[in-house]
């Protein structure tokens, strides 16, 4: 028996004023995930992976026209009672920030069981066992707000598993995590799959890290699902740095004043807290792409906020010759998106920056956003939001572009587009400073890589040289 089965399922979102004839998201899609499998559901950003997963969970299924059968363990999911549904199918979402409900870890773990009216002794036992399985005892009484993104996502997984579902669906669960947290999360997911026998279906556009744990793979394209080998699934989603045309010579323009420099910069957030930056020296050469890499909490975001003037160092010198013409992409694109449609969003700064409709249309065309021009940017997938935010900044034509994790949540196609745009900016003589975990992207666009550790720059090298000498990082 299949744990999850889609039989000839078609789904179309309801028509709106801006989209009178929406195209179907799923068109006669069929798939069968055997019990105990670790299945990958791959496909580009916005291909309908989330919609497909949500259809298997009637409580959160989108409204629209649905035909065909969605079955979990041989039963129609729409015929489950709410309690049965919660105990059969679990769903973990993408964002570690917005799926945590309660203020403490113990309350979050118990939340789902409380909803089902589980008797207290049974609840205590399940919470205890799930915490032990996940090794969460040290933070059982912590406040959820004090957890890192990786821990929060792990908590979301644990809290869902505490309800003991037999089928677990995950919607891009690791796209907001750094590579180390991603590995930890996947290791846990793998253990849940093999040791607890939970069938796992992960929707992802970056299946590479799951290659070794997955047992089967599907690809969603143009509303249809096909099964393919794991290698093919990974290959279809891979980002190839060589696809990005090299931007001429990568020779450094020496002797010029840097586009940004920090000398002996010290920074901490409060008098009682540790130094985040300890005597950091950094010079981003004019007209080049400078990449910063480093672990979580190594101070990358802090450094970028210093670079854009949002924070000031407590000691040391900061020189920002481009302070009058810069743009900053924060880690979460939601921090700069606010308009009703993508087109309005991109037009928002047109007056101050002096561009018009034509440039906006052109930009949407180039980033593949033309099809979603009339949609609300916040309704788009995480990767598309990232592209909209990036386009918004690019339109202001800044001399210095500061990017925090620009490729987070992007599929290979979007990363390629982004890399090309960054290359183009560089050719126009603009300078770019970016912090990222994505070494493939770095090797495609960067002129130099700086490794941040213990609040200082440990080394600065060309990307090829850096990768060749690195024990940890691979493109």
């Amino acid at each position, binding site marked *: 028996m299949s744990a999850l089965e889609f039989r000839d399922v078609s789904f179309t979102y309801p028509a709106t004023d801006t989209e009178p004839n929406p195209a179907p998201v799923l068109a006669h899609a069929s798939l069968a995930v055997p019990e105990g499998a670790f299945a990958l559901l791959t496909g580009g950003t916005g291909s309908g992976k989330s919609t497909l997963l949500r259809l298997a969970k009637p*409580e*959160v299924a989108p409204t629209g026209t649905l035909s065909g059968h969605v079955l979990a363990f041989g039963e129609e999911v729409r015929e489950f*009672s*709410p*309690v049965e*549904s*919660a105990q059969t199918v*679990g*769903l973990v*979402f993408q*964002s570690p920030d*917005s*799926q*945590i*409900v*309660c203020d*403490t870890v*113990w*309350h979050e773990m*118990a*939340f*789902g*069981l*409380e*909803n*089902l*009216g*589980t008797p*207290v002794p049974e609840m*205590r036992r399940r919470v205890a066992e799930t915490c032990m399985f996940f090794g969460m005892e040290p933070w059982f*009484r912590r*406040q*959820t*707000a*004090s957890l890192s993104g990786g821990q929060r996502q792990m908590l979301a997984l644990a*809290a*869902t598993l505490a309800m003991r579902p037999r089928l677990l669906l995950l919607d891009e669960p690791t796209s907001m995590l750094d590579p180390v947290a991603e590995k930890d999360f996947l290791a846990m997911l793998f253990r849940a799959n093999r040791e607890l026998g939970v069938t796992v279906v992960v929707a992802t556009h970056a299946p590479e890290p799951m290659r070794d744990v997955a047992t089967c793979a599907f690809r969603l394209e143009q509303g249809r699902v096909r099964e393919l080998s794991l290698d093919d699934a990974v290959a279809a989603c891979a980002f190839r740095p060589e696809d990005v045309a090299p931007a001429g010579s990568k020779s450094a323009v020496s002797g010029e004043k840097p586009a940004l420099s920090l000398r002996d910069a010290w920074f901490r957030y409060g008098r009682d807290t540790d130094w985040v930056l300890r005597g950091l020296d950094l010079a981003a050469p004019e007209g080049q792409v400078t990449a910063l890499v480093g672990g979580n909490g190594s101070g990358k975001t802090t450094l970028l906020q210093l670079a*854009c*003037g*949002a924070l000031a160092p407590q000691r040391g010198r900061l020189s920002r010759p481009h*302070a009058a*013409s*810069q*743009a*900053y992409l*924060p*880690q*979460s694109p*939601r*921090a*700069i*998106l*606010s308009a009703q449609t993508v087109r309005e969003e991109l037009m928002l*700064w047109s007056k*101050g*920056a002096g561009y018009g409709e034509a440039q906006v249309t052109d930009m949407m065309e180039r980033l593949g956003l033309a099809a979603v021009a009339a949609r609300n940017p*916040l309704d788009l997938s995480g990767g598309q939001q990232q592209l909209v935010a990036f386009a918004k*900044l690019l339109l*202001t034509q*800044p001399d210095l572009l500061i990017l925090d994790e620009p490729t987070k949540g992007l599929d290979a196609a979007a990363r390629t587009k982004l890399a090309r745009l960054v290359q183009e900016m560089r050719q126009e003589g603009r300078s770019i400073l970016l912090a990222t975990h994505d070494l493939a992207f770095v090797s495609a666009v960067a002129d130099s890589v700086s490794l941040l550790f213990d609040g200082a720059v440990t080394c600065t090298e060309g990307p090829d040289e850096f990768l060749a000498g690195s024990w940890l990082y691979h493109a």
Partner: protein
Amino acid sequence: MLTMRDTHTAFDTCHPAVPATYFAGTILIAIFAMQPVCVGISLMGALAFSFAARGWRRTLEGLRWQLPMVALVAVANPLFSASGSTLVAQLGPMAIYQESIAYGACAGALLVAVVLWFEDAACVLSQDRLLQLGARALPTVTLVTSMAAQLVPQLMQRSQSVRAATLATTAAAPQGSRDRGVRVADQLMSWSMEDSIERSDAMRARGWGATDRRSCYLPDSFRTSDALALAGIGLLAVTSAFLVYVACSQWRFYPTMPRLVAWWGYVPYAAMALLPMVLDLGQRIRWGRVA
């Protein structure tokens, strides 16, 4: 915001109902006991526990504004209420009486004592312990409070990143602080709204609303020892309240203040006020670090 309850202090091993009852009783008595000795006892107890549990630095930082407040009330009272019999000074048409100053100082000290007791209570009754108390009777209120509690720090963090993002892109940076404030608030609002949709999906995916009767997970259980402690504290509170009432009814500020005398009846109230400090000290002695 504390990331974890980092102070191991009085009532650490009790059910939260015990400290909740204690602080409710102490604060209630402190508010009504407008008599110099009672105010003194209450202030002393509150300060002693504040030094022990919250540390000298935070206590002194608080006193930096609390002491001037006592002085202010002491000075301000005679200016507004010209009662009493012992003339201290004559400022033009205004007579300043000693009784009036004493009343002001007493009121100021009472105010500071109550503020300190609240701070002490907050230190012992962290929010998750407090929430457990209402969990059975008011499950939804408890849940909403719990949700709000985790959203506040998130909102603070986000407002910082929104501010950075709004100001950092020069071509779009808002002019003037008002425009900037509006932009940041607007941005935060749309971000939070969007999140709340996702959160409600996450809640429904985990069975929110699946049954009418939610059950309730309580990490601490109520034991016989808690009941005994509760009874003891109740007895102490009732005795103190009665004796404090007697003391207050025999005391007046105007027109002249009676002489204060040593009286056994202050002992239960003093014991009650010093209880948390003694418990804290007991723990410290047991762990061999009196510092």
